[in-house]
């Protein structure tokens, strides 16, 4: 049985640095301003910077190649899984063939045996199935050959068993069996229909019910196709069984004694047998589908628990989300009780989640099959951390995230008129989230690297790198929130420092007998501000990319906000690399100021034609 495969490219492309190529806006890079390179002749390097430049290039290549290696590893794992799945299928088929071959063997043995016809049939069939033997015995009185009697008996019993299996598998006789996987509410199983169609209706109605916050909507089209397919086969089967039954009845009751009629009846049974085996495969497929649905539903249950439990300060009835449901087979839609808090979606995207927002709904796009395995909980943890954090922020600053886009624009204008030397709380939180999401990504990457070679060592160093940047930022801005760990209140910085010590020890242990390919962990500290700057820059570029794809006012505002945060961080850390360019800009800050002006004039001059694209969520 084969399974669909999915491709993830946006995050990987971003990490590999391809995204900027799609963006027509000029992009500043930390390592070198590529647009500047194209705009004017190369300035000579300073001699003492040559080695640093080369090291930086090697490190960048290292990071990119590690990611490429990871992608190949993922592909290999996916292929191995597919191979294993195919192997299991083939083994099932082989087993079926063996069974069949064994059945044929019995018949052959009977042919050679000295027994009387009736006895031979009975002995043989008793070994296989008592019901078959009984039926064969009832056929003894008929003028049939031993082979034909055995074939008829076997065929009839097989059909009976098949119908039983068929109905059990699809819940034709048992409402609950049919409804369970597709049921919208586990608390109300009795509401399910007794046919597949009823089940689908039940799912739909409960998805709409406010009393049942968790609705598990399966892919309606796929479900209809599969169930319809099986249902049509059932009808077809019943007709064939009816035809075969009539033909057999005529033969068995002696109404039709012609050899041709008898042969035709046998042929009908044999045909049914062939079809039976084919449909059996579909029964298995359906079984797999049901298992998958159950797995997904369990996942949704878990998601809901996490949503409710994500923030202990939120009381019962004041939940984060009003529903979580599967849509289109591959998407998970979470509908919040309020508008999506500002910054949450960016945090989630920065955490590598493929999400989109519409009004108060967050959609996880193209949920991969393996999200229901080990990766699922991790992704959910990130999501609900972001949600909980957003809710906290929303509670602290209710007006900020509830304002209309126009008001938000005005506020932003006012705020940016003030000199952004000191970072605002919102900007600090934004950068903290960007660095946290980045560190979680890097940690996740470390966990996925197998073995204890250079790749593992460098990956551990990358975690130290990310931790240094985060710790330095939190300390410099006095922005370390407390975390509740096993009932104890621990400062985030302290926890990160402990984590850093652990990773530094791992680097040390892994470095034995390995050549050095990156700077020592202690050296990285000096570069942590530059590291953080890169992350903040990447964040701003994702906003620009979003604007390029969708030049809405909202996205323009998000770019301005991101530029503000980046500028504030640069000023706060006294970083201002040279970015002299053909457009008259001299430095990165200079260029960012210009960029901000550009986006503001786009926003205010009406050059964005689709002003109406600001949806109700932004206007209310």
């Amino acid at each position, binding site marked *: 049985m084969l399974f669909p495969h999915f491709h993830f490219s946006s995050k990987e492309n971003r990490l*590999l640095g391809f995204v900027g190529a799609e963006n027509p806006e000029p992009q500043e890079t930390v390592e070198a301003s590529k647009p500047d390179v194209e705009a004017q002749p190369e300035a000579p390097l300073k001699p003492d910077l040559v080695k640093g430049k080369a090291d930086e290039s090697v490190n960048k290549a290292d990071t990119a190649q590690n990611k490429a290696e990871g992608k190949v590893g993922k592909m290999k794992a996916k*292929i191995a899984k597919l191979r294993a799945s195919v192997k299991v299928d083939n083994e099932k088929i082989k087993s079926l063939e063996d069974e069949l071959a064994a059945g044929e063997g019995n018949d052959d043995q009977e042919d050679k045996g000295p027994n009387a016809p009736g006895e031979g049939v009975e002995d043989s069939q008793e070994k296989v199935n008592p019901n078959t033997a009984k039926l064969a015995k009832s056929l003894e009185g008929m003028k049939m050959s031993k082979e034909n009697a055995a074939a008829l008996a076997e065929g009839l019993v097989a059909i009976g068993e098949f119908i039983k299996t068929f109905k059990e598998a699809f819940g034709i006789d048992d409402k609950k069996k049919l409804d369970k996987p597709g049921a919208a509410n586990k608390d109300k199983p009795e509401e399910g229909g007794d046919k597949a169609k009823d089940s689908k209706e039940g799912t739909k109605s409960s998805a709409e019910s406010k009393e049942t916050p968790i609705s598990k909507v399966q892919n309606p089209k796929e479900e209809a196709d599969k169930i319809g397919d099986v249902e049509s086969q059932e009808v077809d089967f019943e007709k064939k069984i009816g035809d075969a039954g009539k033909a057999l009845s005529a033969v068995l009751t002696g109404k039709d004694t012609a050899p041709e009629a008898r042969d035709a009846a046998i042929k009908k049974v044999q045909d049914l047998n062939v079809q039976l085996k084919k449909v059996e495969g579909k029964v298995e497929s359906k079984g797999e589908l049901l298992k998958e649905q159950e797995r997904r539903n369990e996942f949704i249950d878990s998601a809901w628990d996490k949503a409710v439990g994500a923030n202990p300060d939120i009381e019962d009835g004041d939940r984060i989300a009003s529903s979580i449901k599967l849509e289109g087979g591959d998407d998970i839609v979470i509908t919040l009780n309020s508008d999506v808090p500002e910054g949450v979606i960016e945090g989630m995207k920065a955490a590598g989640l493929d999400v989109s927002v519409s009004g108060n709904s967050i959609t996880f796009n193209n949920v991969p099959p393996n999200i229901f395995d080990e990766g699922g909980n991790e992704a959910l943890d990130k999501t609900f951390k972001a949600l909980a954090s957003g809710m906290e922020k929303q509670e602290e600053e209710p007006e900020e995230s509830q304002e209309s886009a126009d008001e938000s624009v005005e506020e932003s204008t006012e705020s940016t008129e003030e000199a952004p030397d000191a970072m605002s709380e919102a900007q600090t939180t934004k950068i903290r989230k960007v660095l946290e999401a980045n560190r979680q990504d890097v940690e996740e990457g470390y966990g996925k690297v197998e073995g204890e070679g250079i790749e593992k060592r460098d990956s551990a160093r990358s975690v130290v790198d990310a931790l240094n940047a985060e710790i330095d930022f939190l300390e410099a801005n006095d922005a370390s929130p407390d975390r509740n760990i096993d009932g104890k209140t621990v400062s985030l910085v302290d926890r990160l420092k402990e984590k850093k010590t652990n990773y530094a020890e791992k680097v040390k242990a892994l470095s034995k007998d390995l050549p050095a390919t990156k700077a020592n962990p202690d050296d990285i500290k000096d570069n942590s501000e530059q590291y953080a700057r890169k992350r903040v820059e990447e964040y701003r570029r994702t906003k620009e990319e979003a604007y390029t794809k969708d030049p809405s006012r909202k996205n323009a505002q998000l770019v301005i906000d991101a530029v503000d945060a980046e500028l504030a961080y640069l000023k706060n850390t006294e970083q201002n690399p040279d970015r002299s360019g053909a457009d008259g800009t001299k430095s990165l800050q200079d260029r960012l100021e210009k960029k901000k002006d550009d986006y503001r004039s786009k926003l205010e001059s009406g050059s964005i034609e689709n002003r109406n694209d600001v949806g109700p969520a932004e206007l209310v």
Partner: protein
Amino acid sequence: MTTPTQSSGMPVPPVVMSGAELYNQIMSGIEMDLTTENMPTLDTKYEGESDADQKIRMTGYSEAFAEYQNQFDEYQKKQSEEIRSYGNNAMSYIENQDRATDDDALNSLETSMQNI
């Protein structure tokens, strides 16, 4: 994009070089001085160089790094495409193999049943 295959027809996964290997492979085609192997020897090699010559050399290095960046980007794109292509081809290969096996098995089953 074609993907190399084994004698069995199964696509071979692309080889991913280390960062240093990749850097040296690209840079050795642009400016040998800037390979990791030659970099430590530059001070000796250009000892006593005049300021003017050094400025020219540094301009050349600057251009070399810019060219490296271009080639590196191209390489990454190509490699990404190769990896994607490998995955798709390997999946297709297994699917086709499985489909052929399924057909054989079903034919064999049908034949067996007809002979019951």
